[in-house]
């Protein structure tokens, strides 16, 4: 454990650490653009300089700690160095923060105010480069904003391993480009480069010009896209900045999804499916309770379901592996003793979807199979003779494969044709409308919180199960 001194304070660094790592670990901030804890050291942005007493200045991200070294992170020489680097970095930068999606969470913006704060000293015309250049259908680049930190390039070489990005040309004509064989298009982790980019050079057409990040709120959540259960942040309009004049649906829409760093599950990354949770949660919703396809009040439907359950002698339930731990336990508590329950796979890999890899993506495309199987076993659904009631929770089930002439109670959140065929249909909430936990394939439990309010005509499955088990009477 080498002991070093940072700004005069003794610090126990770890062997093999760099000065930057040791400083950050002990609460001394050193600015950095190109360094990233999960990528190799490229040491090319040159902003992280520190002074070691008695030596020349050098970059901290590539400086191994040495016993007894005395590091200054904010000496006059260091400040002068940083200011010069900031001048260089912004020399050909368009400084178009006013129309840049990254504004508000841009490292360059922050550092400019912190370490330079002055107008450009250059009178030369800026170097121009391509804007809105398509690296893939999902990622665009503004090469004028790019500060060539090479994080995105290293990500595709070291993490996603598509090796799809590189830098063409030299000097101030350098351009980040995707390889021409379309590997970036097929990189299932490509959108991580947007988060990695310390400036607004890389951006998603799905967010472009739609939101200013300071009007957004990030709700901790878990991606239900596969059994990895990556922890994410779901970004949506802050309630205190709710839109009144424009399209009100914007207030209940997912603006974007970003990773929530979690060493136990996904590290700092998620796959592109996790970015597209809106495509899952914002499908047309089922909001109307029904009896054999006829709209009824929610309470009426619940009563009908209750009666069916009470009268059934051999009911079978197909339990959703998209249910949260809480919902699954509520089901078990309320109905587990009376109903023969099987775990149903709500989703299987979609055509063209990456099935499995050695980074994050798992073949099981459901978030909570582990918890569901722990409660209800892993036998495939089987319908003995004499089955006289089916409770189907969740989606992804072809009703034609069910025994005929057996009444069906169906719980689903989305508008799907099967809903109308059920004897009783109960619309339920989705993950973004409630809190809960999922257990991933490794047994790690992660929590999610509600982003939006649930509609009154929709029930939380968790409270529904208790209501179904209680004797018929007033609705829940």
């Amino acid at each position, binding site marked *: 454990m080498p002991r070093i001194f940072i700004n005069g304070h003794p610090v126990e660094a770890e062997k093999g650490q760099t000065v930057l790592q040791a400083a950050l670990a002990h609460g001394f901030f050193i600015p950095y653009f190109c360094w990233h804890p999960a990528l190799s*050291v*490229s*040491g*090319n*942005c*040159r*902003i992280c*300089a520190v002074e070691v007493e008695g030596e*020349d*200045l050098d*970059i901290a991200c*590539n400086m*191994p700690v040495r016993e007894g070294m005395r590091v200054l992170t904010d000496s006059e020489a260091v400040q002068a*160095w940083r200011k*010069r*680097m900031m*001048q*260089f*970095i912004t*020399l*050909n930068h368009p400084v178009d923060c006013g129309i840049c999606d990254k504004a508000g969470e841009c490292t360059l913006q922050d550092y400019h105010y912190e370490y330079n704060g002055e107008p450009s*000293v*250059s*009178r*030369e*015309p800026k*170097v121009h480069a391509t804007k809105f250049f398509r690296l893939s259908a999902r990622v665009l680049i503004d090469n004028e904003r790019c*500060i*060539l930190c*090479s994080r995105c390039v290293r990500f595709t070489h070291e993490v996603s391993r598509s090796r799809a990005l*590189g*830098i063409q*040309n*030299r*000097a*101030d*004509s*350098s351009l980040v480009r995707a390889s021409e064989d379309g590997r970036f298009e097929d990189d299932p982790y490509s959108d991580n480069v947007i988060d990695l980019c310390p400036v607004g050079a890389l951006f998603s057409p799905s967010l472009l010009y739609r939101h200013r990040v300071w009007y957004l709120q990030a709700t901790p959540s878990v991606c239900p896209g596969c059994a990895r259960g990556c922890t994410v942040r779901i970004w949506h309009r802050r309630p205190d900045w709710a839109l009144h004049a424009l399209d009100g649906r914007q207030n209940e829409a997912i603006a974007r999804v970003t990773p929530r760093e979690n060493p136990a599950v996904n590290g700092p990354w998620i796959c592109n499916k996790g970015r597209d949770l809106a495509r899952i949660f914002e499908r047309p919703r089922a909001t109307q309770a029904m009896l054999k396809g006829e709209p009824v009040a929610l309470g009426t439907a619940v009563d009908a379901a209750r009666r069916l359950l009470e009268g059934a002698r051999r009911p079978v339930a197909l339990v959703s592996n998209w249910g949260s731990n809480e919902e699954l336990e509520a089901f078990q508590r309320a109905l587990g003793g009376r109903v023969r329950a099987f775990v149903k796979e709500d989703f299987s890999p979609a055509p063209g979807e990456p099935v499995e890899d050695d980074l994050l993506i798992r073949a099981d495309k459901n978030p909570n199979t582990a918890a569901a199987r722990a409660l209800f076993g892993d036998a495939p659904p089987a319908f003995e003779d004499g089955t006289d009631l089916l409770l189907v929770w969740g989606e992804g089930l072809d009703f034609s494969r069910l025994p005929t002439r057996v009444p069906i109670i169906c719980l689903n959140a989305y508008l799907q044709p099967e809903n109308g065929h059920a004897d009783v249909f109960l619309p339920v909430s989705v993950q973004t409308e409630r809190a809960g936990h999922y257990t991933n394939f490794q047994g790690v439990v992660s929590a999610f919180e509600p982003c939006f309010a649930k509609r009154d005509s929709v029930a939380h499955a968790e409270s529904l199960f208790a209501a179904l088990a209680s004797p018929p009477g007033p609705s829940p």
Partner: protein
Amino acid sequence: MSGGKLITGFAVTATSHTLGEYRARGGYQALERALLGMKPEEVTGEITASGLQGRGGAAFPVGRKWSVIRPDDGETHYLCANADEGEPGTFKDRWVLENAPHLLLEAMLIASYALGVRHSFVYIRGEFDLAYRRLAGAVEEAYGAGLFGKDIFGSGFSCDVFVVRGAGSYVCGEASALITSIEGKKGYPRNRPPRLTVRGLYQKPTVINNVETLANIPWIIAHGAQAYRTFGTTKSPGTRLVSVSGHVTRPGVYEVEHGYPVGRFIHEDCGGVLGGRALKAVIPGGISTKVLTASEIEPHRLGHFGDCEDRRVLPQSAGIPHLEPLVFEGESLQAAGSSLGSGGMIVIAEGTCMVRVLQVMLRFYHHESCGQCTPCREGMGWLHRIVDRIVSGRGRPEDVDRLYEISRANDGTTICGLGDAAGYATVGILDKFRCEFEYFIAHGRSRYDGCLECLGSS
């Protein structure tokens, strides 16, 4: 004449580069001597004792570099000969490659033996054509004669050589970029640490030496370090290949013994300044070394700054005044604030516009900056654009100070030496010829336009 000849001491003919003639001159005897009569450490010891310094630009002691490698530590080691020779004004390695390719190959075998290298590489500048063909031919000849491959001279030592052609990038001559290029990646220099002798090519300990540096080795092994030290000076032993170009009567490659006066070399050996004009300045060792004025080269004749009639501005970073004539020796040039660099000497005659000289140099650095690190990527273009603007007649009074600032902001802040060197070169010219810039800015034209005939200059 400019002293003893250790590398060029034979008559160049149409066949003097062949294996037969090289052997007739005593070639590959040093290799035999090393392989059969010396231990690897003894070879390194001899090189260390000779005081041989690198000729690629930094004058790093070869023995010190080699001593980091433990030839018998069981690790894979690599040797790369740096034949990229990209420094403007420098073309002395080409002479070795074209006229004595076997000298390089013999040296690489000796060095490989000393360093425990099984596979060695030559990284040769892509633009070299004859040099490449001669080298490739020599490799064929050497393999044919059993000089490469397994069990050379029955010594049990085996070594192979690979010739890798560059693709025309200056920065790939920088040792770590060269390695990266050999690995098949874009030629970006690497940060140190780790040093290349610790983790170099394919992450293995690697020694990189300039072609001329290596070309000295067979002589040292054949004759011994003591004999080598009788050439040159105590601090800079041996000789040095100097490639001379510019406004000079007899441009070409010369072998000059260390200690030889620079002024005498230009005026006598090279036949003086072209067209009999006065000497204005000399870039001593490739454009990355600081320019020297005529009076710095021959202060004993011209007096210090004596020739600067209307150039009498005290330089901002003047070297230590010295009235000794400048000689080919690291220390002498260092005292004058410059260095021997890569031995690429550019002679500049009176009447040359130094603003345009700087413009040409900055165009080069701007074009060749790899673009990896911030100060060089942005600074080279910035410097270039400012000087371009001055030359187009739209200079501003603050430009000179800005050029200084940008140059200094590259000093010690970059990954490799390119950004630093461009800064030194710029500061060198500004220090000594600031008034030319001020004139150009004030009048919108060069002080030399229409004043002097520039015979033969291009």
